[in-house]
């Protein structure tokens, strides 16, 4: 059926409830779109048989009067979530052929609410990257092009496959994970909404671990409302993740009142960086005006340790990664490389040498170095002290304001392949998203405008821990004021 792939989650939910179409029809439409958008390489695995089976089961449940929060809605899943019996690669060669014998808690929550899995989306290897260039399964293309150009652009990363699939209407929504910006930066690059909840809001159980004190699952969708719908189903306490928070999950959709009168919005001076493109600075100013016009009070704030968040992150995250990735040993799952005469250590070294890509290897080595004897205090403990200061900056700010508004990224989408020979230039993509990650705070990127080349730009909101409702409320107002309707493809370039 035509038109079904243009629907939001909320729209599809209403259509299913009204009996305008079935989940099987909705799912087939998206499976067709998956095929049409294959050149983007947004999926590592399409699971059409699985999807149709789930869709038919959903239609049967609906006929029997049973409906979950996501009943019959097709969702794409980042290939970092373990899915029972369906290959889960984390974008890495080292997990080739791995079919988990269990289901991640977040995806299990989705299926329990009636959702349908379309497939597993491509991503930077082990979620380490901001371009989707580091996937063993090939780069992902952003469906957007700059005006007058046919050069392929990066979708951002690491959840680049999820973002590209949702922007290209191959999926109405997708799961992502965000360690330092891996949901919000690709959402900004692809002109859609990406939301990272408070650390602890979603269970990390069954998500391939990158940096355990930072990793958090979240929704990728085309509207703020859809993000609220998806997060409600994803979130919740899980005894299998001791850092998951035993707090009830609110109805986030109910928070979208459209009324932010009297809320105080902080504007941090430290996010005004030299060299920020004029279009991004101007969009930020427009965002401030929109919120002011909606009745919010704008407050200038300081987050003095902002500039140290990124270097501290590039100690903490690689340190945790080097520890987490020690499990890939060629013994229990995935790749094994060894000559006939190899001893155990040689087998480990050969397997890990062949199985990890360049960026993952770089981070494992940085992590091993900063944790090694004699350097632990100077690097790792120092970074964790700086992290305390970053969290304190936010705690001070949230004594005065309800939310903070910043740009999401320092640039629009860049050409695929750029910045690959300069790791630090690549890391700087996350300069505006990493501080909230370091403090464990919820944050969202909302598409808010186009730059001079017709490429989407996002605005970024940060709220205090577990204030997702405030975040959605302000984001909904920002979205309505921005009125972002541009779409990738010829229509967007017209």
């Amino acid at each position, binding site marked *: 059926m035509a038109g079904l792939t243009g629907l939001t989650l909320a729209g599809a939910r209403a259509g299913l409830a009204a009996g305008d179409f079935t989940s099987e029809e909705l799912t087939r439409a998206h499976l067709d779109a998956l095929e049409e958008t294959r050149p983007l390489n947004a999926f590592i695995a399409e699971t059409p048989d699985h999807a149709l089976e789930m869709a038919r089961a959903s239609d049967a449940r609906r006929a029997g009067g049973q409906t979950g929060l996501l009943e019959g809605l097709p969702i794409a899943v980042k290939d970092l979530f373990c899915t029972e019996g369906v290959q889960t690669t984390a974008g890495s060669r080292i997990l080739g052929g791995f*079919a988990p014998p269990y289901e991640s808690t977040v995806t299990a929550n989705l299926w329990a609410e009636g959702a349908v899995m379309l497939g597993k989306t491509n991503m930077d290897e082990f979620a380490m990257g901001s371009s989707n260039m580091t996937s063993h399964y090939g780069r992902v293309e952003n469906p957007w092009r700059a005006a007058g150009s046919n050069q392929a652009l990066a979708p951002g990363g690491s959840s680049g496959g999820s973002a590209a699939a949702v922007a290209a209407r191959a999926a109405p929504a997708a799961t992502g994970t965000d360690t330092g910006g891996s949901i919000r930066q690709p959402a900004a690059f692809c002109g859609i909404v990406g939301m990272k909840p408070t650390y602890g809001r979603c269970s990390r159980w069954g998500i391939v671990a990158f940096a355990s*004190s930072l990793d958090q699952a979240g929704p990728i969708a085309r509207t703020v409302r859809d993000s609220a719908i998806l997060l409600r189903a994803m979130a919740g306490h899980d005894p299998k993740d001791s850092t998951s928070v*035993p707090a009830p999950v609110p109805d986030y959709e109910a928070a979208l009142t459209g009324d932010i009168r009297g809320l105080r919005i902080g504007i941090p001076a430290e996010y005004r960086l030299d060299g920020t493109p004029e279009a991004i600075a101007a969009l930020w100013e427009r965002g401030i005006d929109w919120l002011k016009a909606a009745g919010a009070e704008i407050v200038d704030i300081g987050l003095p340790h902002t500039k140290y968040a990124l270097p501290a992150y*590039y100690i903490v995250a690689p340190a945790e990664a080097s520890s987490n990735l020690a499990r890939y040993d060629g013994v229990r799952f995935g790749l094994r490389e060894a000559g006939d005469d190899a001893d155990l250590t040689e087998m480990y070294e050969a397997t*890990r040498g062949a199985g990890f890509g360049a960026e993952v290897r770089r981070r494992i080595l940085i992590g091993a170095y900063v944790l090694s004897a004699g350097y632990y205090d100077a*690097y790792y403990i120092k970074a964790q*002290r700086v992290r305390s200061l970053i969290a304190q900056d936010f705690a001070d700010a949230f004594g005065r304001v309800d939310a903070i508004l910043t740009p999401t990224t320092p640039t629009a989408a860049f050409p695929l392949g750029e910045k690959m020979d300069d*790791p*630090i230039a690549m890391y700087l993509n996350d300069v505006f998203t990493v501080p909230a990650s370091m403090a464990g705070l919820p944050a969202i990127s909302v598409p808010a405008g186009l730059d001079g080349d017709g490429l989407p730009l996002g605005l970024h909101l940060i709220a205090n821990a577990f204030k997702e409702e405030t975040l959605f409320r302000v984001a909904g107002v920002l979205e309505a004021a921005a009125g972002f309707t541009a779409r990738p493809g010829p229509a967007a370039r017209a």
Partner: protein
Amino acid sequence: MALDSDTVRRIAHLARVRVPEAELEPLAGELSNILTWVEQLGEVDTDDVPPMTSAVAVRLPMREDRVDDGGKAEAILSNAPEGAPGFFAVPKVIE
């Protein structure tokens, strides 16, 4: 901090990642650049600041220490690249 090839070789061995000899030198350069960049943290006075130990201020839950899962040897072994029934297999470690 500038790392030399020998240090990279030592770290790579600690991390059990084989790095081809020809890649040690360029990798040393890349890692040195990253370490030099993160060393700007030295500008921050952290003398009286405790290191962060938890992203969100919650107490870790306690639970009874009892077995509540198990009997899944077959499922656990199903992804092993090499194995014998009921076992993971590794290269010989004892002569």
